[in-house]
């Protein structure tokens, strides 16, 4: 039976090469012309503990990690016990026969991958034995796997050829065992190779690349899951003249250092997770008050406190929208795919420059480390909106009242003219501290008015005249989109509205949501944070919530949305 879509999951313990296996299969499939998306979940420890990594391979772009799994590679009994219920009806398990056995008669067979790897002369080829077996089960071409192996192990070393041959042999041996087992989960349809150049990248790397494409010059950060990979990326790549990437001693240092750099004229950014956002809130308030451009990336994990450092949740929205005390509403970009991560990274830097203030980019663990193949971004199309720098006389009214009809006042930069005090106390037009009501009124209005400058983020509207609109945010977009398409295909009357920008919300999105009878918001938190904020704006929004640390599956959304229709009708 030909199939267009397979999910293969590798489950076992952290440190057993689960991610490597899923990544290898994804890369082999991608170079053959398929679309892939990986997803991993692991505990917060260096090695050991139950972990899994999966890859979804499809003939069309992959929107989510899918519903059931077609092939489970279970490296220990615990992994089998915990994952086999996710298998689809004819799904097959490959179990680690060196570790445990399963009673005769099920949809599974054992492989002694280590023993077989040893016979190839390369004990490290065990992953390739498994990949060979998986390829056989889904009828994926072994020659594509060979190509991947040649590519991976051609490293200009003396023993390259030896390693390549051992790995190719391992793939063949694994495939033979699967063949002898008699199982198959179907035949992977021929790929429809995209006619554009592609890159394979994770969400966190895409954000980093996007920010640098928009001219990011300064990055400091403090290690915290799942944002650490952005720090590491910057330390490795943001290097050269006038560039700076550095690990500081806390998130409090991070926010205030990027504030200092932003004030001194640099495009600056940090990335963190929930606990870091909590520590940064006072600094974010200062950036809002003193009007300093900077970008903070929040890669969300389960909270509060230390919470679930390696699980996914969308529960920081309240904290990001209103992080600081006082009258503050942060601009928020929340990309919903790896590709959107790239463009949001660039736009966040540009927004900060454009309105001279802090911007928060919200991502999630689920899309931070997942790899996806996306069209290679055209860097020449990324705009570089450097703030206008003041060049007049001293005594400049840096903070004069302003509304959208005028150009925003330029920003003086130390070393240039217009020396002023960037002031976190309420101030007058030139920046001097004042408590007079008129200044607090004017300056509060100036700070909120500036938000109107922020547009240009991606949004989607479909079937807007339907009474019920599905409106996900962040990385719940993928599974919601898949659910939406299934609902449409089965004749359900539903509309779609999605925006990367949550504040300010594009006018067209506001219009559609305001007119809808009901707006359904799938989101990964207990309180239904986005629908609560939408209700604040008079939109009749209600959430479908999930708070178990894992992303939505399209299938569960379909049934929950349908329930919703029944409830609405009953009313």
């Amino acid at each position, binding site marked *: 039976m030909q199939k267009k879509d397979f999910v293969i999951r590798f489950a076992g313990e952290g440190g057993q090469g689960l991610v490597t296996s899923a990544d290898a299969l994804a890369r082999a499939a991608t170079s053959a012309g398929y679309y892939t998306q990986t997803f991993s979940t692991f505990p917060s420890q260096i090695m050991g503990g139950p972990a899994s990594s999966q890859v979804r391979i499809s003939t069309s772009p992959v929107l989510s990690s899918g519903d059931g799994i077609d092939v489970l590679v279970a490296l220990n009994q615990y992994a089998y016990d915990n994952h086999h219920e996710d298998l689809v009806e004819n799904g097959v398990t490959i179990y680690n026969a060196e570790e445990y056995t399963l009673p005769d008669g099920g949809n599974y067979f054992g492989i002694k991958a280590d023993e077989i790897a040893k016979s190839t002369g390369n004990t490290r080829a065990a992953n390739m034995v498994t990949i060979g077996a998986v390829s056989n089960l889904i009828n994926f071409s072994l020659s594509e796997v060979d190509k991947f192996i040649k590519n991976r192990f051609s490293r200009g070393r003396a023993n390259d050829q030896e390693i390549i041959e051992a790995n190719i042999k391992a793939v063949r041996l694994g495939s033979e065992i699967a063949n002898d087992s008699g199982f198959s989960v179907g035949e992977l349809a021929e790929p429809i190779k995209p006619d554009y150049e592609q890159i394979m990248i994770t969400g966190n790397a895409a954000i980093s690349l996007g920010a640098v494409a928009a001219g990011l010059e300064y990055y400091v950060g403090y290690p915290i899951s799942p944002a650490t990979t952005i720090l590491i990326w910057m330390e490795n790549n943001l290097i050269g003249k006038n560039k700076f990437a550095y690990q500081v001693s806390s998130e409090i240092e991070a926010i205030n250092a990027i504030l200092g750099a932003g004030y001194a004229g640099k495009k600056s950014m940090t990335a963190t997770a929930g606990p870091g956002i909590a520590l940064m809130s*006072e600094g974010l308030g200062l950036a809002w008050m003193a009007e300093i451009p900077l970008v903070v990336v929040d890669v969300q994990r389960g909270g509060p406190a230390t919470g679930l450092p390696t699980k996914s949740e969308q529960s920081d929205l309240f904290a990001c929208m209103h992080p600081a005390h006082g009258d503050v509403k942060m601009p928020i970009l929340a990309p919903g795919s790896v590709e959107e991560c790239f463009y949001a990274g660039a736009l966040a830097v540009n927004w900060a420059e454009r309105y001279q203030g802090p911007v928060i980019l919200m991502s999630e663990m689920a899309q931070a480390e997942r790899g996806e193949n996306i069209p290679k971004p055209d860097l020449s199309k990324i705009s570089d909106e450097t703030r206008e720098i003041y060049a007049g006389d001293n005594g400049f009214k840096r903070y004069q009242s302003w509304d959208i009809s005028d150009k925003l006042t330029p920003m003086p930069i130390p*070393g240039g003219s217009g020396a002023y005090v960037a002031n976190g106390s309420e101030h007058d037009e030139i920046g*001097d501290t004042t408590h007079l009501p008129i200044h607090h009124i004017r300056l509060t209005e100036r700070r909120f008015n500036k938000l109107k400058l922020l547009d240009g983020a991606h949004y989607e509207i479909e079937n807007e005249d339907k009474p019920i609109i599905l409106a996900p945010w962040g990385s719940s977009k993928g599974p919601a989109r898949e659910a939406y398409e299934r609902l449409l295909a089965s004749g359900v009357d539903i509309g779609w509205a999605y925006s990367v920008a949550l504040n300010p919300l594009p006018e067209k999105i506001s219009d559609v949501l305001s007119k809808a009878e009901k707006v359904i918001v799938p989101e990964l938190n207990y309180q239904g944070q986005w629908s609560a904020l939408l209700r604040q704006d008079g939109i009749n929004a209600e959430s479908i919530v999930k708070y178990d640390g894992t992303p939505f599956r399209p299938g569960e959304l379909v049934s929950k949305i349908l329930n919703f229709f029944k409830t609405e009708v009953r009313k």
Partner: protein
Amino acid sequence: MSKRNSEYDFVWCPGCGDFGVRRALEFALTNYTSEHEKPYNTNVIVAGIGCSGNMVHLIEGDQPFGIHGIHGRTLPIALGIKSSRPDLNTIIVAGDGDFLSIGAEHIGPAAQRNLNVTCIIMDNGVYGLTKGQSSPTSDMGKITTSTPYGKIEVPVSPLNYYMTVGVSYIASYYSSKPKILANFIKDAMNHKGFSIVHVQSPCTTYNDTYELLKGKPREGIPGLAWEIPEDHDPSSENSAFDLLQRPGIPLGLVYKAEGKTLEDRQEEIREKVKEKDINETISQYVI
């Protein structure tokens, strides 16, 4: 800016030590700037929160750039300014409350980096702006509004603290002689590395220590403050620690160590590692 802007509503109390420190800072900025033939607007003052931080608004004459941020975070803000713009002369003005209580966590990391900024710490041994609470440098047993039955902690010894965490330039002085203080501030600006000029700057309202510092020479009562002897070797860590064993407040240069700064080390990496171009970076991901 106070002279230009009649609406500005902050004043120091009559006799506040911070007046003298401001004068000293103005001298130091003018002399440093003309000596180095740099424009005045390459000076940036990062101000803490408290009476002393308001100095950033009260500088008279030529105006430097300034940033008046949040309580305790002058060092992180200065880190951002200096590491992104090594060309800027970056100066911190803060009090003992801001710098040594809420902000103390940042002193060690700044010292390990040898961040090339100058801190002018005005120590009055009290939280003045919030009207007289105990501070890290208030004496044990001190009665303040927040310690009505006496302070129950040992006071921090700032100079020992700076020595211990590895600050590379430490001077101690008082606010009463602005011209001499100005020389230490300018010397600290010229020092390549993390410099602190710790200034006894009495609070005439809540903790008036003028007499305590100077003593009553006519009556033969010695003051707490004493001039560091000329034979002190500030380049020796041991001599500096020995000096700080003596009771009272030393006046003068305590310690000065030459070494590489954060920006020097960053520059070494830039020379060693090839500059990454965005097009090159993106090509790593092409499949």
